[in-house]
């Protein structure tokens, strides 16, 4: 039926419009189109595996192959990059109206809502796609081993279906040539996140976390959707190219550049505010960050890819992509900066007080995303993008390392119950790579994380009016270094000690996702292979009795090593290209995209490195761009030092450290931080409970009042009937009386009405 419509309408379809002068003929378009196509092939192939009940690792290899192919395509495009490209797959939504001639004369102009399934590829896209597809390939490889416990069930295929679908959605999000397709990807990644967080669907906590993620994201999505609508209404297009080239928009931009915000209508200024809400939701910014820590219920590869490296940076991407739009508003970027700073600090404080290492990493992700937003807010889209790029590597690395620990210790994630892991046989690679990741995250000098973080910090001080943001970020940098190394010092070094995890509670490799009855039948002392330590669940109360942590296999180790090398390999990128030392390659990439400086930007502080600012903030009277290297390096090292003192040197026994002794001195604050400042409870109280009450109330209202009224209307005739039924007494005289009375009454009222 559908194909019928398609064929019949083929003639109707106007040729896909080529819009904007940013476009080149779609040379190499096929290469970029291959990215979503390849991932879709992955989705379909894995679905077929699920349907055909394939119970091997085939889905994983298919996925790795598809994703690697996609990465190859992106790489090839990157290497052959000549300028922005536009590739139209097909016409997705094309709604046209107007054009008729009204009776009064004249002609109504033709308007259209036009959203192609089209790709817009510029350097920003490529930057994102490179690490998205690259990391996805690596993590798929990692997951092939990590998820091996589920090979015997349909879950394995299911995992990779969702995994591939995620990369597909992400590529739509990043490569879209219009906001609507971006929205498709935006919600698509949300769906995949939902499916993957809820992968262990038997765990109520996982289901709840998945739900929470989706719903909180939807709040943001609504903002984004409204923003898109507002853009469409004001500019008549949702395509970036057309929008940015729009003369009216250019006018607003010029006004904004000149500082004349008063001449820009409020609704134009509202656009970034709406888009921002979307970005906050997806990138887990305050106040919508609450879903991300819970999202750690998903399998670790998912946490690494989606909830650390790629999906959560979509908000940064959105703002970077529409960076010019954000500049037409007086308040948009300051809000972004402050929200970023607040999020960074808040998450860091919570992260300090957590004991679950995966959760600490989650809060650190939130915190680092806050950095990125602050970077965007202080006008260094380069810094933000650069930080996204480096963060993707080291945070994925950290997660994967944590995942390896979790995998090996039956789900144990509590840093009080693990110690000295690095020295255990087979865990050296994990420990070393973890150290690389931690150093990056802590901003240890000269590492990738250091350079990118430093750019944001420096710009925060350099940008007038934002030094408070800068101080907050600086403080956060110190806290970050501390909690990062708190993890490292407690888990990976120190005396060897461990307690295996409780499968039921934490371990995501738990058996029996599929069928009952055989999971517990396996011998407990196998020691090799994967997915066979289920029996330990019985001994969870008995400490180490009968439990042997099994070190990661080749796939996990390989991925960890590759990522660690990658984290070093990207350092030199900072020192090549036109912006060497200030983002380097990444800066070049951003500069040549829509996130770059304003086309008409005369002297506007769009970038954080030029010296030509009319006014320039300082860091304690010094040029922040020069001193910040040292300051941030020192802060990082101090943080690491404190962690060393409290958690390694001062650790008296495996489970306790000097920090625990310090806690009472701080009063209730650590408790509050441990309880995440009660934000979840606050939301529960402020939003969920009222809604829940309202829902019940509405239900009652519906039953009693709305339906009650209906029933009442149904009841009225019956009641009326009952009321006048006595008149039908069956007695002749009664009838006669009623008739006579009725006639008299009727005539009386008629006559009275007449007189």
């Amino acid at each position, binding site marked *: 039926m559908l194909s019928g419509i398609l064929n019949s309408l083929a003639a109707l379809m106007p040729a896909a419009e080529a819009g904007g002068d940013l476009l080149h003929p779609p040379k190499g378009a096929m290469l970029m189109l291959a990215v979503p196509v390849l991932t879709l092939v992955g989705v379909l192939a894995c679905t077929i595996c699920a349907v055909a009940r394939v119970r091997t690792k085939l889905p994983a290899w298919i996925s790795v192959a598809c994703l690697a192919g996609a990465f190859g395509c992106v790489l090839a495009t990157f290497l052959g990059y000549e300028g922005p490209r536009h590739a139209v797959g097909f016409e997705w939504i094309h709604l046209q109206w107007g054009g008729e001639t009204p009776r009064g004369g004249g002609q109504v102009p033709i308007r259209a809502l036009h959203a192609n399934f089209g790709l817009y590829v510029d350097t920003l896209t490529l930057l994102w796609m490179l690490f998205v597809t690259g990391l996805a390939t690596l993590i798929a490889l990692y997951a092939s081993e990590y998820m091996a416990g589920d090979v015997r069930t349909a879950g394995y295929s299911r995992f990779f279906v969702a995994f591939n679908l995620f990369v597909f959605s992400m590529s739509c999000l990043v490569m879209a040539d219009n906001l609507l397709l971006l929205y498709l990807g935006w919600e698509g990644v949300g769906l995949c996140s939902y499916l993957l967080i809820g992968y262990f669907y038997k765990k109520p906590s996982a289901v709840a976390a998945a739900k929470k993620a989706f719903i909180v994201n939807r709040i943001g999505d609504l903002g984004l959707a409204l923003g898109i609508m507002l853009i469409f209404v004001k500019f008549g297009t949702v395509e970036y190219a057309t929008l940015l080239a729009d003369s009216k928009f250019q006018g607003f931009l010029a006004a904004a550049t000149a500082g004349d915000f008063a001449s820009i209508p409020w609704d134009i200024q509202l656009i970034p505010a709406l888009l921002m809400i979307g970005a906050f939701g997806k990138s887990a910014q305050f106040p919508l960050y609450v879903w991300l820590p819970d999202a750690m219920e998903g399998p670790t590869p998912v946490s690494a890819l989606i909830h650390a490296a790629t999906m959560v940076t979509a908000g940064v991407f959105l703002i970077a992509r529409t960076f010019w739009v954000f500049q037409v508003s007086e308040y948009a970027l300051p809000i972004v900066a402050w929200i970023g700073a607040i999020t960074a600090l808040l998450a860091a404080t919570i992260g300090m007080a957590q004991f679950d290492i995966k959760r600490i990493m989650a809060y650190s992700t939130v915190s680092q995303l806050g950095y990125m937003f602050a970077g965007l807010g202080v006008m260094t889209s380069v810094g933000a993008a650069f930080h996204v790029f480096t963060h993707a590597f080291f945070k994925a690395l950290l997660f994967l390392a944590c995942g390896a620990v979790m995998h090996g210790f039956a789900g144990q994630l509590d840093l009080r119950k693990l110690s000295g892991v690095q020295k255990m046989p087979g865990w050296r690679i994990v420990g070393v790579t973890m150290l690389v990741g931690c150093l990056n995250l802590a901003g240890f000098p000269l590492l990738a994380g250091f350079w990118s973080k430093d750019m944001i910090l420096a710009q925060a001080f350099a940008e007038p009016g934002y030094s408070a943001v800068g101080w907050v970020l600086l403080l956060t940098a110190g806290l970050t270094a501390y909690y990062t190394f708190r993890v490292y010092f407690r888990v990976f070094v120190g005396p060897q000690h461990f307690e295996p995890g409780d499968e039921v509670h934490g371990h995501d490799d738990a058996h029996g996702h599929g069928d009952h009855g055989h999971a517990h039948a396996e011998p407990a002392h196998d020691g090799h292979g994967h997915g066979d330590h289920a029996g330990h669940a019985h001994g969870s109360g008995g400490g180490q009795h009968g439990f042997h942590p099994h070190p990661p296999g080749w796939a996990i180790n390989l991925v960890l090593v590759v990522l660690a090398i990658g984290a070093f390999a990207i350092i030199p990128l900072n020192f090549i290209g036109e912006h060497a030392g200030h983002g380097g390659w990444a800066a070049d990439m951003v500069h040549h995209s829509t996130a770059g400086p304003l086309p008409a930007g005369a002297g506007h502080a769009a970038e954080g490195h030029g010296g030509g600012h009319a006014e320039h903030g300082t860091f304690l009277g010094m040029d922040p761009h020069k001193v910040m290297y040292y300051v941030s390096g020192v802060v990082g090292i101090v943080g690491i030092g404190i962690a060393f003192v409290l958690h390694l040197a001062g650790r008296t026994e495996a489970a306790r450290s000097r920090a625990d002794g310090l806690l009472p001195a701080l009063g209730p604050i650590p408790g509050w931080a441990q309880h995440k400042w009660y934000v979840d409870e606050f939301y529960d109280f402020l939003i969920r409970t009222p809604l829940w009450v309202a829902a019940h109330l509405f239900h009652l209202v519906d039953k009693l009042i709305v339906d009650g009224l209906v029933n009442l209307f149904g009841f009225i005739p019956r009641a009326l009937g009952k009321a006048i039924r006595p008149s*039908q007494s069956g*007695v*002749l*005289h009664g009838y006669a*009386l009623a008739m006579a009375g009725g006639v008299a009454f009727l005539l009386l009222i008629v006559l009275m009405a007449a007189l």
Partner: protein
Amino acid sequence: MMHLLAQANPPAPMHAVTLGHYLFVSAAMFAIGLIGFVSRRNLIIMFLCTELMFQAAGIALIAFSRFHLNHTGETFVIFVLTVAAAEAAMALALVVLLFRRRESLSGEEWASMKG
């Protein structure tokens, strides 16, 4: 109703018997018949009350006939009497039938169907 009629045809001041008087008698008869019909229980009396109402109409017709100086009303009365006679025959037959069944002439005997 009476009030209206009185207004329309004010009785003449002195002894002359006017249309108004006839109509008053007619209306009174009609009312008496109606009240009797409603208040009495005996079926025969009730029927007689309807006859009274018929004849009230008859009086009015004759009075109007006189008033309009044509004979239509009188003609009408003849027919009314005929119909009244027919009804009377039916009434008596019915009453006999009913009496056979219930041994009573009270209208209240017949109230099995109601509601």
